[in-house]
C-alpha cells in the first residue's frame, strides 16, 4: 500500500465497566483528506475522538501518528504534536479579546510561556499572524471586541481560528455545526472546506448535508465497530447503513412528506440538516 497515512489506529478498544464502547477499531486516515465519522447515537464516535486525543486511555490497541506510536502520550503532548480538537461545546476564552484568544494559541510555540519576568508586549509580534488568521475566518473586524459578546456562529469561527493557530496537521472536529441555524451551517461548512487545504480533518457530524458536501471519505461506526467505509455515494447506498443510521426513508409516508417540502438538495438525507 502506498497510501500516505497520517493517523492509524490498530485494534483500538475502549471498555467501560461491563460495556465496550469502541471495539477493535482500525481506522486509517489519509493525509490531506476530510474524513467523516458517522454512525448511530452511542456508536462510539466521541469516544474514538477522546481516545485519539487521550482524554480517555485506550483499554488496548495502538495509535500511530505519522507512523509513530503515540499511545502513551498525554493529551497536552498530543496537542503539541499537531493533533488538535475542537469541542462540541463552544470553547473560547470569554473575557479575552478575540485577538488575544488567537494569540494565546500562537504563543505556545514561542517558548516564552513560562517567562513571568518579561513584559507581555513581547507578544505583540504575534499580532500580525493572529490578524491573518482572523481574516481567514472573517473575524478581523471583531479583533478587539470581547469574545463574550460574539454571536454563536462567530464564536465557532473563532474557535476554528484558534485551532488553526496551532497549525495542526490533524484537526478533529466533533459535530462542528451542532445547534446552528441554516446560515451558520453554511458558513462553517465553507470555512472547514477552506481551512482543509494543506491539512487533514477528521470530523463527527450528524448533518448529512455537511458530510456529503465535505467528506472525501466516510467511516460508519456501529456499536463500537466499523460497519463500512467509503465515499459518500458508496456509504449512503449501503443498506446496512440505511437501516442503522439513515433510516429507510422512502417507505414511510412521513418521511415522504419531508421530501415534498423545500429544496431537495440532499438526496437521502431525510430528516437531517436544515
Amino acid at each position, binding site marked *: 500500500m502506498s497510501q500516505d497515512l497520517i493517523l492509524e489506529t490498530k485494534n483500538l478498544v475502549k471498555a467501560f465497566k461491563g460495556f465496550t464502547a469502541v471495539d477493535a477499531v482500525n481506522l486509517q486516515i489519509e493525509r490531506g483528506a476530510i474524513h467523516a465519522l458517522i454512525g448511530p447515537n452511542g456508536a462510539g464516535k466521541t469516544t474514538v475522538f477522546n481516545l485519539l486525543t487521550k482524554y480517555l486511555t485506550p483499554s488496548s490497541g495502538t495509535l500511530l501518528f505519522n507512523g509513530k506510536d503515540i499511545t502513551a502520550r498525554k493529551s497536552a503532548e498530543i496537542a503539541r504534536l499537531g493533533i488538535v480538537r475542537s*469541542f462540541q461545546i463552544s*470553547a473560547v*476564552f470569554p473575557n479575552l479579546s478575540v485577538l488575544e484568544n488567537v494569540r494565546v494559541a500562537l*504563543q*505556545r510555540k514561542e517558548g516564552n510561556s*513560562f517567562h*513571568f*519576568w518579561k*513584559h507581555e508586549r513581547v507578544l505583540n509580534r504575534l499580532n500580525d499572524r493572529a490578524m491573518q488568521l482572523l481574516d481567514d475566518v472573517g473575524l478581523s473586524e471583531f479583533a478587539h471586541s470581547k469574545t463574550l459578546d460574539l454571536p454563536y456562529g462567530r464564536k465557532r469561527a473563532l474557535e476554528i481560528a484558534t485551532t488553526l493557530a496551532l497549525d495542526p496537521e490533524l484537526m478533529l472536529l466533533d459535530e462542528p455545526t451542532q445547534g446552528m441555524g441554516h446560515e451558520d451551517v453554511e458558513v462553517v461548512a465553507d470555512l472547514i472546506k477552506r481551512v482543509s487545504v494543506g491539512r487533514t480533518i477528521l470530523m463527527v457530524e450528524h448533518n448529512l448535508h455537511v458530510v456529503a458536501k465535505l467528506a472525501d471519505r466516510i467511516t460508519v461506526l456501529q456499536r463500537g465497530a466499523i460497519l463500512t467505509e467509503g465515499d459518500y455515494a458508496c456509504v449512503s447506498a449501503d443498506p446496512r447503513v440505511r437501516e442503522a443510521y439513515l433510516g429507510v426513508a422512502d417507505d414511510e409516508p412521513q418521511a415522504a412528506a419531508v421530501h415534498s417540502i423545500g429544496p431537495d438538495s440532499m438526496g437521502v438525507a431525510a430528516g437531517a440538516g436544515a
Partner: protein
Amino acid sequence: MKTAIVTRSKLNLVLLLLALVAPFVLYPVFLMKVLCFALFACAFNLLLGFAGLLSFGHAVFLGTGGYVTGYLMINTGITPELGILAGTLAAGLVGALYGKLAVRREGIYFAMVTLALAQLAFFFYLQAPFTGGEDGLQGVPRGYLFGFIDLSDNLQMYFFVLAIFLFGFWLIQRTVHSPFGQVLKAIRENEPRAISLGYNVNDYKWVAFVISAALAGLAGSTKTLVFQLASLTDVHWHMSGEVVLMTLVGGMGTLFGPFVGAAAIVTIQNYLSGGELGNYIHIIMGAIFVICVLAFRNGIVGQFRKVLKQNF
C-alpha cells in the same frame, strides 16, 4: 488610553512620594507591618486573583520564610539580605512541593488541600526542634545590611522594607502582565480549552504557586526582621484566613487591592488591640468577612473602580 497611562504613572509617583515621607509622620514599625502584610496579600492575590486558585494555607509560606530567616540570623550571623534570600528560597521550595500536590485539584478542593497541607506544616513547626515551639524564635537580630547599614534603626529598616516591597510588587505586576500571565488568564477562563491548545495547565499553575509562595516567604522573612521574631501565629490557619480577608477587603484580582486591604486590616487590628474593643476582635473580623462577601465582593479598590467607571 494615553491619558489613562499618564494618570496611572502620576498616581504611582504620588504614592511613592507618600511612602517616602510616611515614616516621618507615622510610626515606622506600623508602616513596616503594613508593607509586609501588603506584600503577603499581593503574593496571595497573584494566585487567587490572577490564577483563580484560593489557597487557604498561605500562612505556611509566610511562616517558613520567617523561621528560616530567623534561625539563620540568630545562629549563623549572616547579613540580613542573605537571611531574607534564604527564607524566600525556602518558602519557594516548600511552595514547589505543596504546589505539586495542590494543583492536582481545583476550586474548593484546592482550598481544602492547601488548608490541610498547611496544618501539616503547622504541627511540624510546633514540634520541630529549631523553631522554639510556642515561644517562637525571639530576639532575632536585624543585623547590618550588606554588613554596614545598621537596621536596628527603625528608619533605615523602613527604607529597606520599602525597597523589598517595591521589588515584590513590581515582580507581581510584571508576572500578571507577562506572556506567562496571559496563559494563566487563559487557563482561568477556560481550562479544558487551554489543555486542548497544548498547555500543561498544571505546570503553569504550579509555577504561579511557587512564585506566590516565594513572595509570601519574602514577606515573612522581612516581617521576622522587623519584629525580630518568628512565631507560630505566622503559620496558623487564622493567618491564612487573614490574608484572604485582606485581599477580599481590598479587592481581589486588582493590583492595588491587597495593599489597601492589608493596610485596612492591619490598622483595624492595631486599633482594636489597643482598646476596650479587644474583646470583640474575632466578632469584628468575622463581621467584616460576612459584610464583604454579602455586600462588597469587589473590595475597596474594585468598588472604587466601578464608581469611577460609572461616573466618568
